[in-house]
């Protein structure tokens, strides 16, 4: 079986064996399995990839530049679109950075809501990943579509919960600097419990679907082995790193929201292949369900905004200073670095940098692809789960 050691990501094609049957194949930018617009240039020897060069930038929307123009209130619906599979995480990252710089204390009810929303977003994001991963492996007409349909059925119920609170299916604009905009209702609590009960049973069904499937095992077992040290040196976090044995989770190691009061179980695997990444994500889904169940009944009463609501979009002013704040998004460490003192006397940021986990995940492609076939490349790309809005920004 192929291992990462010995792969040269900077292989010079000119020096490769001239008698080999070389071919260049472009995977993307338009390809259903690239999860967006992503291009990987594959150098093939027969069917085996000998070199892979990723190209990003097909969805570069200049978000960081746009965030320098807009005020801190206007930025929040903009950053929703970065990681569009779990939009609330982006909102929370920006809001947390601003709160840390301004010294605003978020009321406990808002912290509970943020935790519940974050875990439900993780659940929805992993459900979407599982469904599209089934599509990647099986194809729309090859049997993978059934897992896709099941997962989207469950995801719709989670989105329905968000719709009840915020009025949107996604791009919620529900977090603000200092708290939340929308409050939950007793009906939300009730619906959440019912939904989680259904999903918990269904997750066991999904595990049954592919753990009993020989084709699924063959296509993920030992494919795309990511070394733990390599993952750390590339800055890879989240489920990818945890599947490679890196025991790191910001919810436990640098608690924010109310994670400090909870006991968060972190699941790690040592294999580092596609199958391990699948297992880690499935365990995280179960863990998210457990966390939401644990805290949904103990949400304290009180206000959900920790500051006086402003009337103008420029009422939040950060005159000077800089701050970094990060959280554990479904893909890893999502951080926001803000330098205050921008336009109109600090109403907008002088510089706003987003540290996105997807970019780091995509950076391991030159190490993982060589030695595999083209169909394995699709499986590896599926488990890396890069979101292009976050990679290119």
């Amino acid at each position, binding site marked *: 079986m192929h291992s990462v050691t010995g792969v040269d990501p900077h292989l010079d094609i000119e020096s490769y064996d001239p008698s080999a049957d070389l071919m260049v194949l472009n995977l993307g*930018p*338009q*390809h*259903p399995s690239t999860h*967006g*617009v992503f291009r990987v240039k594959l150098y093939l020897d027969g069917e085996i990839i000998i070199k892979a060069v990723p190209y990003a*930038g*097909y*969805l*570069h*929307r*200049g978000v960081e*530049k*746009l965030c320098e123009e807009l005020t801190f209130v206007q930025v929040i619906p*903009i950053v929703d*679109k970065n990681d*569009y*599979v779990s939009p609330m995480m982006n909102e929370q990252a920006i809001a947390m950075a601003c709160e840390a710089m301004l010294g605003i204390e978020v009321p406990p009810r808002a912290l509970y809501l943020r935790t519940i929303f974050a875990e439900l977003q993780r659940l929805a994001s992993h459900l*979407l990943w599982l*469904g*599209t991963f089934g599509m990647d492996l099986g194809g*729309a007409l090859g049997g993978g579509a059934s897992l*896709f*349909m*099941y997962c*989207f*059925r469950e*995801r*719709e119920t989670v*989105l329905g919960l968000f719709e009840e609170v915020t009025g949107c*299916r*996604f*791009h919620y604009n529900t977090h603000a600097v200092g708290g939340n905009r929308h409050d939950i209702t007793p009906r939300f609590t009730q619906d959440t419990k019912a939904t989680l009960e259904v999903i918990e049973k269904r997750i066991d069904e999904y595990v049954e679907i592919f753990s009993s499937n020989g084709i699924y095992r063959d296509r993920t077992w030992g494919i795309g082995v990511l070394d733990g040290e390599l993952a750390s040196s590339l800055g890879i976090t989240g489920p990818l790193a945890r599947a490679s044995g890196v025991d790191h989770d910001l919810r436990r190691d640098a608690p924010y929201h109310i994670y400090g009061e909870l006991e968060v179980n972190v699941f790690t695997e040592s294999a580092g292949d596609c199958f391990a990444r699948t297992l880690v994500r499935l365990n995280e889904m179960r863990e998210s369900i457990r966390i939401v169940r644990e805290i949904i009944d103990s949400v304290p009463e009180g206000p959900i905004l920790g500051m006086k609501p402003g009337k103008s979009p420029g009422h939040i002013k950060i005159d000077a200073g800089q701050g970094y704040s990060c959280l554990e998004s479904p893909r890893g460490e999502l951080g926001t670095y803000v330098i205050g003192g921008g336009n109109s006397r600090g109403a907008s940021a002088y510089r706003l940098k987003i540290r996105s986990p997807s970019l780091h995940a995509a950076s391991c492609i030159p190490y993982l692809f060589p030695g595999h076939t083209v169909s394995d490349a699709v499986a590896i790309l599926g488990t890396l789960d890069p979101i*292009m*809005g976050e990679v290119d920004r």
Partner: protein
Amino acid sequence: MAVDETQRTYDHPLYQHVERMPGLSVALGNIDQLLTWGSANSLWIFPMATSCCGIEFMAAAASAVDLDRMGSIPRGTPRQCDVMVVAGTITVKMAPRVKKLWEQMPEPKWCVAMGSCAISGDFYRDIYSVIPGIDTFIPVDVYVPGCPPNPEALMHGLLRLQEKIRMLREGKLTREELRPESPPNLNRPAIGRLHDPERDPLTSEEQTDSAAGLGFGDNLNLARIRRPRPTAEPRPQPGAEPQPAADSDEESAP
């Protein structure tokens, strides 16, 4: 090779072929109805999904709002498809690829602009790397507003497209598709939209050529998609009368 929507033919070549054969046109008297029914109810979709709207497109194709039940199957290749659903922001780097994929689709073909980024660029419209609306380089038949539109909204857009196909084939399309107009306080795109009467007809030709890699060397010329053709003499400035507000927001109203 200029793509001009007014000159596009909606007559199926099979229809012309059958009509010329003696006797067959009598035997298949209702072949026109048959073809109309067939083409409107088997719209295979090529999802040009780039960002957030792509996720909603997937949700529309999945179990809750099942697009398959109206004959719309998403396919991964442009050569088998009738409708291109452009879902998401199109950047300057991506636009030549979109144009190229659009040219690869066989006629008759339609285009649905899904989401406000594809319609007008939304709040990214003034960013250096974003195309302010895909109708600056490919003709759009139906606009589905929203950020992102619900799956139900996309389905409504496809139903409107079906209606449009039926009316076009029966010659009953009396009015043009309502186009979303930019409010006067926003920047207009540097290249006029395809339905804009002030648009230079040569622009369409150049866009087609540059997407096909013709005339500008081996590489796709990115700048040609976005910037206007340099002209020797300054073009006459159009009258600065604002658009009538009456029909401006009917399409883009939520």
